[in-house]
């Protein structure tokens, strides 16, 4: 009898599930809800079209995914309350079906709702990919998995909330309202900073890929937040299933009190444990990262200057100003499959004559294996410093061998993201964090106000010669601020050589694809580089203008497309010249790759959209928008030299020169439409620090020069300044000298005819 009755029970549960499926498919709520989600999806994509699909989904999921959860709650709430609404409740409850079986039959029936929405999303993804004409890439797989997991978790969450509310609240409309309120509340929590108090809310938020704590990118997918996302999804699944189980227990307890609740309660406890462990692991992950950030900041900011005296004197803190300097670097990098880098750095030193004890700054996350050289007597490691004792006959060369896989996090606006890291998936290394030995002692960061700021002072007193050889996994590609010398693939390894004269070497690597359109070279995620080629025409116009203005051939710097989250660390502020042109650019004080153009993924998409609009409309506004970020990069490459890893804006003379060239650009593009008077009024109205006043003075000097000696005089001065920056910065005295030189030249030969 027991076997037969068990068979009957299962047949009833599945019968209810099948009927529920049929009723869902015939219900208006489900199809209207699906239409609403479709509209939201299409609407969001329309607003952001054209964009690569990964970005579309990152931008587009803010509405469609929570909408999916909302619609699911409403549809399932209506489904659970169907008998009451159809006035079939009394018969339903008088049938010989155990109330738990009724409940589980209805739960199984919601698989239709899940199937409809998951199918909907699976249908959308390839369609969007096809329409966007984008190639499949590893990050695309990551996006797809992330989205399906996200949608499935959101659906489960909606079902869990609806199922548990059904047992707690009798009225179907009140249940629906409460369910919607819960989802809305947890969606809105992501509007706030991500800290201890909002982490729990984020866990229950119905979207992940575009969520606050994470930074999805076309290049890296969900890296490096994959572990957090995994715990997030597991928590949602566990919590959702726990809610479902709890609903079942409550339902049964209410309608069938004689039946034991222990099995159901045990299931609830297990699922709550799963959710609890996932939440704890999630919290722990962020706590560990937060602790890491604090430790890193405390270590790198608070690491005291070496106590021992050094030859030639050494400032206790601060800059790299020291008698020790490096005039040439030869770096050989071997990147292993597991992400560990092994580096042999051969340094040609200056200022070590007579021997002594000298410090080199190398970030402590690199393990120094050896310091060798003809004159090296001894060496030791102290925090971020490598001490070398050199004998009297100090030869100017020393070789430091070190290895590691540094990973530095940073908290910005509540978000935690890596800003200097090496991994098997890719990475970015800034010379400001001493990934190769810097001369002297250098405090790498300042965290006095609680915010991490990189030490932006020049790393070298003068640019050095760099020769960098990199060997890495086949799937990886690398870019640097130095010029490409050679690239080849041998024995399943990628090899690249860079060389150049620079203030430092920055590195960005990952599964980069390359594209070329005319003189425009692009490197980045495969779904983005093909888009970027649409910038070739604006790029060429921009470079041609500056070449003509300066009378010099300007190197065509490549454009590197990086994940948006990589740009989080840098201070952002507005620069007024381009404000007056209707744009509000946000500049980065520490260029990622020196003079090389760096665009975030969304910046690239915005620029491409503007370029397309410009091709169609030829408006000034669209052209400015298309060239905005390229322009900033070009200004850095022109006026940021020789210390290209330090923003040109930090030097008031360079800034004044840049403001003048931007003004000329504005006149060139906008012609008579450009209101220079208003522009100058804005300049005059800016808060004036001493540097601001100096920059303004440079600008007005150039304008005066143009008035008194003609445009060619200014062009001559700009050309001379450009040449000078090859080796050293300009200060006010240098600028005055150039002014005098140009005036003198013009006065001697007479002004050219205008």
């Amino acid at each position, binding site marked *: 009898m027991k076997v037969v009755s068990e068979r009957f029970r299962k047949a*009833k549960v599945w019968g209810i599930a099948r009927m529920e499926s049929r009723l869902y498919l015939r219900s208006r709520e489900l199809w209207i809800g699906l239409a609403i989600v479709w509209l939201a999806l299409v609407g969001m994509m329309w607003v952001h079209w054209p964009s690569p699909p990964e970005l579309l989904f990152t931008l587009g999921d803010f509405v469609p995914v929570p909408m999916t959860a909302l619609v699911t709650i409403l549809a399932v709430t209506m489904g659970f309350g169907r008998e009451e609404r159809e006035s079939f409740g009394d*018969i339903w409850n008088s049938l010989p079906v155990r109330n738990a079986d009724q409940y589980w039959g209805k739960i199984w029936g919601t698989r239709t709702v899940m199937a409809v929405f998951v199918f909907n999303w699976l249908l959308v993804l390839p369609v969007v990919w096809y329409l966007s004409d984008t190639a499949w890439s590893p990050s695309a797989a990551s996006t797809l998995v992330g989205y399906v997991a996200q949608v499935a978790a959101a659906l489960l969450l909606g079902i869990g909330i609806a199922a548990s509310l059904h047992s707690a609240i009798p009225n179907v409309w009140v249940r629906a309202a409460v369910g919607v309120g819960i989802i809305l509340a947890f969606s809105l929590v992501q509007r706030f900073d991500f800290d201890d108090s909002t982490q729990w809310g984020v866990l229950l938020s119905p979207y992940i890929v575009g969520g606050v704590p994470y930074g999805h990118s076309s290049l890296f997918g969900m890296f490096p937040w994959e572990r957090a996302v995994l715990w997030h999804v597991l928590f949602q699944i566990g919590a959702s299933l726990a809610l479902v189980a709890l609903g079942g227990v409550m339902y049964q307890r209410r309608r*069938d009190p004689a039946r034991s609740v222990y099995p159901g309660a045990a299931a609830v406890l297990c699922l709550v444990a799963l959710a609890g462990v996932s939440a704890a692991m999630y919290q722990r992950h962020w706590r560990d990262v937060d602790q890491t950030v604090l430790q890193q900041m405390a270590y790198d900011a608070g690491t005291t200057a070496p106590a021992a005296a050094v030859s030639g004197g050494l400032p206790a803190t601060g800059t790299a100003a020291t008698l020790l300097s490096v005039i040439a670097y030869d770096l050989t990098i071997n990147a292993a499959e597991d992400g560990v880098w092994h580096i042999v750095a051969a340094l040609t030193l200056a200022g070590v004559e007579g021997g002594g004890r000298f410090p080199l700054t190398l970030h402590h996350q690199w393990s120094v294996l050896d310091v060798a050289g003809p004159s090296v007597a001894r060496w030791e490691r102290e925090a971020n410093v490598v001490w070398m004792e050199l004998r009297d006959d100090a030869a100017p060369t020393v070789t430091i061998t070190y290895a590691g896989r540094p990973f530095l996090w940073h908290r910005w606006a509540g978000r935690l993201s890596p800003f200097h890291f090496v991994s098997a998936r890719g990475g970015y290394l800034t010379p400001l964090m001493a990934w190769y030995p810097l001369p002297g002692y250098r405090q790498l960061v300042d965290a006095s106000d609680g915010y991490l700021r990189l030490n932006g002072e020049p790393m070298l007193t003068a640019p050095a010669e760099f020769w960098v050889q990199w060997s890495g996994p086949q799937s990886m590609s690398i870019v640097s601020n130095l010029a490409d010398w050679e690239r080849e693939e041998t024995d399943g390894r990628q090899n690249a050589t860079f060389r150049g004269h620079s203030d430092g070497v920055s590195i960005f690597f990952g599964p980069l694809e390359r594209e070329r359109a005319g003189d425009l070279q692009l490197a980045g995620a495969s779904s983005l580089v093909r888009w970027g080629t649409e910038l070739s025409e604006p790029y060429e116009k921009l470079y041609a203008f500056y070449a003509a203005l300066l009378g010099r051939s300007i190197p065509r710097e490549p454009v590197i497309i990086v994940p948006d989250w990589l740009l989080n660390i840098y201070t952002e502020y507005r620069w007024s010249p381009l404000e007056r042109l209707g744009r509000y650019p946000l500049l980065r004080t520490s260029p990622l790759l020196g003079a090389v153009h760096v665009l975030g993924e969304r910046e690239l998409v915005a620029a491409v959209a503007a370029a397309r609009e410009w091709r169609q409309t030829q408006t000034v506004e669209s052209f400015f928008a298309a060239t905005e970020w390229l322009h900033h990069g070009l200004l850095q490459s022109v006026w940021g030299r020789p210390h290209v890893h330090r923003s040109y804006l930090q030097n008031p003379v360079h800034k004044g020169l840049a403001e003048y060239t931007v003004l000329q650009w504005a006149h060139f593009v906008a012609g008579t439409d450009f209101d220079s008077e208003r522009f100058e009024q804005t300049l005059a109205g800016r808060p004036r620090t001493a540097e601001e006043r100096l920059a303004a003075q440079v600008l007005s000097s150039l304008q005066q020069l143009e008035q008194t000696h003609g445009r060619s005089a200014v062009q001559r001065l700009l050309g001379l300044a450009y040449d000078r920056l090859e080796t050293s910065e300009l200060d006010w005295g240098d600028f005055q000298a150039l002014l005098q030189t140009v005036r003198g030249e013009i006065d001697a030969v007479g002004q050219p005819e205008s």
Partner: protein
Amino acid sequence: MELIIEGLEKRFGNFIALQGIDLTVRTGMFGLLGPNGAGKTTLMRILATLIPKSKGRVRIGSFDLDREPHKVREILGYLPQAFNTYRNLTAAEVLDYVALLKGIVDAKERRKEVDRVLEQVNLSRRSRDKIGTYSGGMKQRVGIAQALIGNPKLLIVDEPTAGLDPEERIRFRNLLGEISGDRIVILSTHVVADIESVCTDLAVLNQGKLVYRGTPEALARRAEGKVWSLTLDAGELSRLNEVRILARRQTANGLQIRCLSPSRPSPHATQVAPTLEDGYMATVGSEAAGMAS
């Protein structure tokens, strides 16, 4: 099979809906009469295992309602007062679903059973139409059909003819008469005519208490010697004392009334044989029948 109710009480907060109900019902058609608010539906819902009782004991066959509600549901067919069902499904689909939930897991058997009840309620030709397209009477027939699925031993039918037109009502009564067979059928209604035509046994509830238990004939006899017919002028009506008007009709000769009174209300009054309704009114004593002032 017997339905035995002993000392049944049901409270909703301070309000006593049922009190001291003792009842034994055997196989056949049993009527439960009572005015609106008497407690009929409350009693039906308790028997249908939808709401718990506050006190007392109920046995249905060998099953105790409290300890074995699931067993009771297995032998139960229930048509509630306001019946409706999934409008987007056909009658065949609904009945198939109910049959499955009642334990008929074999698909062929279910189809046979569904066809049988559809035939019984004369809905075979419309079985593939969606219930949302049915008339009120047709929906009620679907209701009784689902109650009949699985050949239940206890059939509870609560106000089944409410809202039906006279033709549908007669058809429904005839149907009920056909199905009593070897099961207990409890027909709860405030329409006396429904009971009169089909029930051989009945009880009357009023204000939560059982005020009559017996046959329809015996109920009618309660009004024997108390039912009068007379014709009078409208102005004379107010002079009648202790009279409950059962019916009035304006004729060419004046106002013809049928009334309930312990004694002859007027010299012109003629005693008439009481009907079941008269006996019901004599038992319930409702003021809505229109007492003369």
